[in-house]
């Protein structure tokens, strides 16, 4: 067993996991954060995307033990009890998610993009979402939602966003 202490969604958490455990598995099984999904387990589909120290990563490709002392943001950490994150709101408003399985990963990739680039072009959005597959054909609506949330986030810069 390997002991890992890390920050998840702002809270310090610890777990003892077998050494082969991936970050995805630890999030889902040890912390019951099932928002990140297992789609392919080889880093192709992006359904497991989370943000580690500000960078979007495929959590199925990262070992839990690598997370010692680092900070993870998952889809569960975006909204507050009384407010959706602007990205979540625009994804809902634009009906960007159909079956929803790819959704948490897409939203986390979008979050990483908008944190680094508050006013991305369509090409930059496409590039940021290139690692996230959707089979219900939702890309157009997703790009619309990212543009819309970017606009909303720029508008309320002074206000705190998660």
């Amino acid at each position, binding site marked *: 067993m390997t002991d890992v202490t890390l920050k998840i969604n702002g809270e310090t958490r610890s777990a003892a996991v*077998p050494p*082969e455990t991936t970050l995805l598995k630890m999030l*889902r*099984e040890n912390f019951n*954060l*099932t*928002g*990140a*999904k*297992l*789609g*392919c*387990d*080889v880093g*192709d*589909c992006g*359904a497991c995307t989370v943000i580690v120290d500000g960078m979007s990563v495929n959590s199925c490709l990262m070992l839990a033990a690598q997370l010692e002392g680092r900070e993870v943001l*998952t*889809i*569960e950490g*975006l*909204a507050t009890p009384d407010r*959706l994150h602007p*990205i*979540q*709101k625009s*994804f*809902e*408003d*634009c*009906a*960007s*998610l*159909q*079956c*929803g*399985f*790819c*959704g*948490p990963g897409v*939203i986390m990739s979008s979050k990483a993009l908008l944190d680094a680039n508050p006013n991305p072009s369509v090409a930059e959005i496409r590039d940021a979402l290139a690692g996230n*597959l*959707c*089979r*219900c054909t939702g890309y157009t609506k997703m790009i619309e939602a990212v543009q819309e949330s970017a606009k909303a986030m720029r508008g309320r810069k002074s206000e705190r966003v998660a």
Partner: protein
Amino acid sequence: MTKKAKPVRTARAKSAGIGQPVDASGTLRLPAVTQQVAYPIEALAPKVRQQTPAVGQRATRPDGRLHGLGQTKYIDDMSFPGMLYCKIKRAGISSALIKKIDTREAAAMPGVMAIITGKDIPVNSYGPSIKDQPVLAYERVFHAGDGVAAVAAVTEQIALEALEKIKVEYEALPAIYDPVEAMKDSAPKVHPPSSNIYATKLIKKGDVEKGFRESYRVFEDTFTTQMVEHVPLEPHCSIASWDANGRLTIHSTLGRITLGRTDMARTLQLPLSRIRMVATIVGGNFGGKNEITQEPALAILSKMTGRPVKGTFTRTEEFIATTTRHPIIMHYKTGVSKEGKLIARKVRLVLDGGAYCSWSETTLGKACILSPGPYNIENVHAEAFVVYTNKTMTGAMRGFGAPQVCFAYESHMDDIAEALGIDPLEIRLRNAFHEGSSSPTGQVLHSVVVRDSLLQAAERYGWKEAQ
């Protein structure tokens, strides 16, 4: 039940315009049955082909918020106390006799709770029409993705390690992969003694040979499509559990739970009333989650261990052990007049059915009926065959065979138009179905807007300018 005071409407409620029953204390009480309200339905109903205000409006999905919050619970997001994990050993050989399955070493591993093979399944066959698919292959392997043993262990990792310790002895048999070769009498049989051709369909209208003789020119071509996997982002996943009364509950990613329940009852020899299928939001189906896969095996493992058992397919298993889209070899022969009018069309379709029937009969029917295309043709002869091969089974996938034949007849139309020097749009307009046309199977068609759609599309796309 004590008799309650009859609800009365107070002046307050009336004046507020609520119209809800209010009890003696003055608090609002919701009626068990909501009052009927007469909506002016006629006034709101749009006239036929009138543009409704829905188009261009923003629509949100009722489940969209939970999806975005990551709070939608798919089957793999659920777990039950004491739950075990199941992994299935895949054959890895496409045609063979199973001589021996030795599970002793795997069963002795700490953490392995139960192992089953095909012989542990009461009725080891299922399928939506022909029941030719084993839950776990026993005695004979029909394609490389067949499961031969299923392990339940306390962790997924232990279950995976146990698979490697299961020893299976095979005696390789000749295999067949080409559907056209498989139709020959000399070809090895996938399901002996049955023929490899397991379903056929024939549609005849008029006299094609006469039509070809009367044609200005006759065109012939062959089109093929490849096998396609649905690749839903959510892999197949199920959890089986029993209650102390001997009732089975299956939480599953299945799209057709009632059909799945019938298959479970048959394979497990249980009355339907003892089986409960629970489906939640499916993470992509596209036709690939229309039938059971591992569920009977999970149910038996769960019964043997007395614990819930979860099975999640890996992405590899999604490709090798679930249904795919039929590859079709499509031969077209079409006779046309000088003006590009279709006079006769002969179609021969060979569907590669893979190792099991699954939804092949439905696909065969739809592909065959739609194969002449949306065109008025006096003389049609369409024949279709679906054939067993030692490959991953093919089944339902969006369109049930319609996309494949559409690719063929539209490509064929383009070739004909080019050879005759007619505009591809024009040749379609000259032949397209109109109001009251009848399909090759004799169905009289209504609300036919092929021409209108083509013309509108051409206008918007700028077809003329692009020429």
